[in-house]
């Protein structure tokens, strides 16, 4: 008798715990929901409320830094940053799914037709990189880079190196970095070869190039370090100054865009990004626009 009572008590406890967990989970969701939308009346007007953004994963780390600094400066505001990719960002801004979208490439013609307001918040260079032990390649013409990635040049000896096969490393289809690289290096006619190794992130490309003497790849400037060697393109080094001056060709803007009139909160955020304070955040990894 005692035994069954004991067991069922445990079972009861178990069920009660489960129910409690459910209730707590439910409340948790509710609480955060109201928290995000609550707007305290009476306080300083304008800068309260929530902004959402979606788009390029290249821009995402920068957006998150902007958001944190902005929220710290204006308590009561909430900026939620999501990824999704540049194309998603444009779509989200156009359809109003997010308050503003982020793109790490210039808008395509059909995207320009949406009539979105574009704000360029910074510039990023895409550097062509090889293994540090690769001593024979210092400078490549943009045509040669194109031919290497198109699979027309497949051996380092064609570029003045030893007789070994080139391992080209690229990003996956849809990537903003790949999109920008295709637009600026490959042009309209050439395609990145199917035989190139595909890595899912800048970090992956970095890892692959750093680990293979015959590798060549392209990286966002934020990822450059001494584990990979940066190659000059058309005789120009990938530096902040050269990109600002427009002499280094492979660069792209990070763009925020929104549809129609900006709300006061959105306007404040855009102003913040372009302010000295905002651009100081940019300067840590990328190239300022002013």
């Amino acid at each position, binding site marked *: 008798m005692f035994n*069954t009572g004991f067991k*069922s008590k445990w*079972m*009861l406890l178990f*069920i009660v715990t489960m129910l409690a967990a459910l209730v707590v989970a439910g409340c948790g969701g509710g609480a955060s929901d109201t928290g995000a939308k609550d707007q305290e009346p009476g306080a300083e007007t304008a800068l309260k409320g929530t902004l959402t953004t979606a788009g390029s*994963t290249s821009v995402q780390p920068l957006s998150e830094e902007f958001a944190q600094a902005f929220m710290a400066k204006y308590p009561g505001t909430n900026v939620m940053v999501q*990824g*999704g*990719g*540049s*194309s*998603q960002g444009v*779509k989200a801004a156009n359809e109003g799914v997010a308050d503003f979208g982020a793109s790490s490439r210039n808008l395509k013609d059909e995207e320009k037709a949406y009539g979105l307001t574009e704000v360029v918040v910074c510039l990023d260079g895409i550097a062509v990189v090889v293994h540090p032990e690769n001593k024979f390649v210092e400078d490549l013409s943009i045509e040669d880079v194109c031919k290497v990635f198109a699979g027309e040049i497949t051996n380092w000896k064609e570029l003045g190196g030893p007789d070994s096969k080139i*391992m080209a490393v690229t990003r*996956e*289809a*849809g*990537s*903003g970095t790949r999109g920008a690289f*295709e637009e600026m290096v490959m042009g309209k006619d050439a*395609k990145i070869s*199917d*035989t*190139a*190794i*595909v*890595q*899912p992130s800048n970090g*992956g490309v970095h*890892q*692959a190039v750093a*680990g*293979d003497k*015959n*590798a060549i790849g392209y990286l966002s400037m934020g990822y450059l370090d001494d584990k990979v060697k940066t190659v000059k393109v058309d005789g120009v080094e990938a530096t902040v100054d050269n990109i600002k001056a427009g002499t280094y060709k492979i660069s792209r803007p990070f763009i925020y865009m929104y549809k129609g009139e900006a709300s006061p909160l959105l306007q404040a955020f855009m102003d913040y990004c372009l302010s000295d304070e905002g651009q100081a955040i940019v300067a840590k990894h990328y190239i300022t626009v002013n």
Partner: protein
Amino acid sequence: MRRKIEWLIEKSLLLSAIAGILIVMLIAVFTFLEGFPFLAKYGVTNFITGKVWGPSYGEFGILSMIIGSFYVTVGALIIGVPIAVACAIFLAEMAPQRLARLFRPIIELLAGIPTVVYGFFGLIVIVGFIKAHFNVPGFSVLAASLMLAIMILPTVINISEDAIRAVPKHYKEGSLALGATHWQTIRYVILPCARSGLISAIFLGMGRAIGETMAVIMVAGNTALIPGSVLDPVRTLTINIALEMGYAYGDHSSSLFATGIVLFVLIICLNALVMRLKRRVTD
């Protein structure tokens, strides 16, 4: 009171069972809803037999990935299963109690390592090894298979060992009493009796290998071409989804869900095949 509690327990168990089934159904329905319109538009045959994958210019052929998944999985089984079964025989039949007690938790630990860690290991050690010895980039079918072979070890070993241990003791005693050696007993009595369990073990390992994503993405090279040799890079169905989902939209995104459908159907077929095989073996 007691009856009420009984009733409550019974119903809550039923509810849990339904929840499990419901989740499978939901995932299936969701995948199909997202991917089916694309399949209808592009054509199932075009999709499955197309050799070119170029979402940015409207080519969606996943033949290379179906073949890629097949190669990588078969490779993993060829390398992993003999080792795993041998290990299970050793643990169940030969190892002294104390040694087996030491080995088992270590093997189980293998199952607890996060897949990204496997991937990182594969990237540095396996890819590096192949690169150094074969003078190729190293991202390859072989690298993926080797790594998956390691990853399926705990699953296959554990279930095989259970199957071998489940063989009634008097079979073994009878065989030994007839003068058979220990190895002959294992080979002709124990393994044949355990084969149903062994098939389950191999199949579960295969399921793990076919579904693994994160680890293979780091060592496979991910080119959407049919590999010509085990040293060529490869892209599997799971890699395709994980690799491109982040940036895809429109048709590209739907095509990835359609890839998911193909994977889903493939696994259901394999499941059915193994069920049938198992029934034939046990009959």
